[in-house]
């Protein structure tokens, strides 16, 4: 695992979550700014997948491969589906739903970190 990337992804997705909560509180729909931030997060997650698999192949430590790769792949699905689901809602609750989707990324990154360092 490339730790700086993990923490950057945690920080960026938490920032996006706060942004989405502010939008929901102000009765706004999600906008391109928050989607742009999440686009950057998604690219980071893709990099994390590649780095993670390369390191998993090279490591001699006993890392649970299937769970590790499962979390890496799973993390890629959350934001696109969450964003589509949020966009289809005309009210503030779309932004609220996107905030929840954003929160999933730090949880997955921390679990990945745990599995890798276990």
């Amino acid at each position, binding site marked *: 695992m490339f730790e700086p990337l993990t923490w950057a992804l945690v920080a960026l997705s938490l920032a996006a979550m706060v942004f989405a909560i502010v939008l929901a509180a102000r009765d706004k729909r999600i906008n391109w700014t928050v989607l742009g931030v999440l686009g950057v997060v998604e690219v980071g997650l893709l990099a994390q997948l590649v780095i993670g698999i390369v390191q998993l192949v090279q490591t001699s430590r006993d890392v649970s491969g*299937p*769970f590790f790769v*499962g979390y890496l792949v*799973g993390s890629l*699905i*959350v934001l696109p*589906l*969450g964003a589509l*689901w*949020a966009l289809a*809602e*005309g*009210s503030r*609750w*779309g932004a*609220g*739903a996107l905030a*929840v*989707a954003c929160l*999933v990324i730090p949880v997955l990154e921390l679990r990945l970190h745990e599995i890798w360092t276990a």
Partner: protein
Amino acid sequence: MTDAEATRHGPGRILILVYGIFALAATARAGVQIATQFSDAPIAYVLSAVAAVIYCAATFALAKATRVSRRVATVAIAVELVGVLAIGAFSYAVPDDFPDATVWSHFGQGYGFVPVVLPVLGLLWLGRTS
């Protein structure tokens, strides 16, 4: 917008998203467990798979939001509530039968206890939008 469609709007948007996350998590978890280490804890892993199916059914039924799908969702969520309470209690009473965790072990402790709260919110929301 028909009345039934209200199920997937407003706060329902968040509820269904959380259901979707659990559908994804439970399916992935059960898939990995059954594929790689089924013989370690067959009962726990079969229950993991059952939980996954129920989360998927509840997610799609809530998201479809028709009169019929709402009934499917009600049944799925009722089973989910019984499941999480039964497995939760059982995993405390007879820990030896649960050498590895399912989503519902210890009332969903490994998932921040969301699994025990989610079906209650689901049933309340279905009641609210009926």
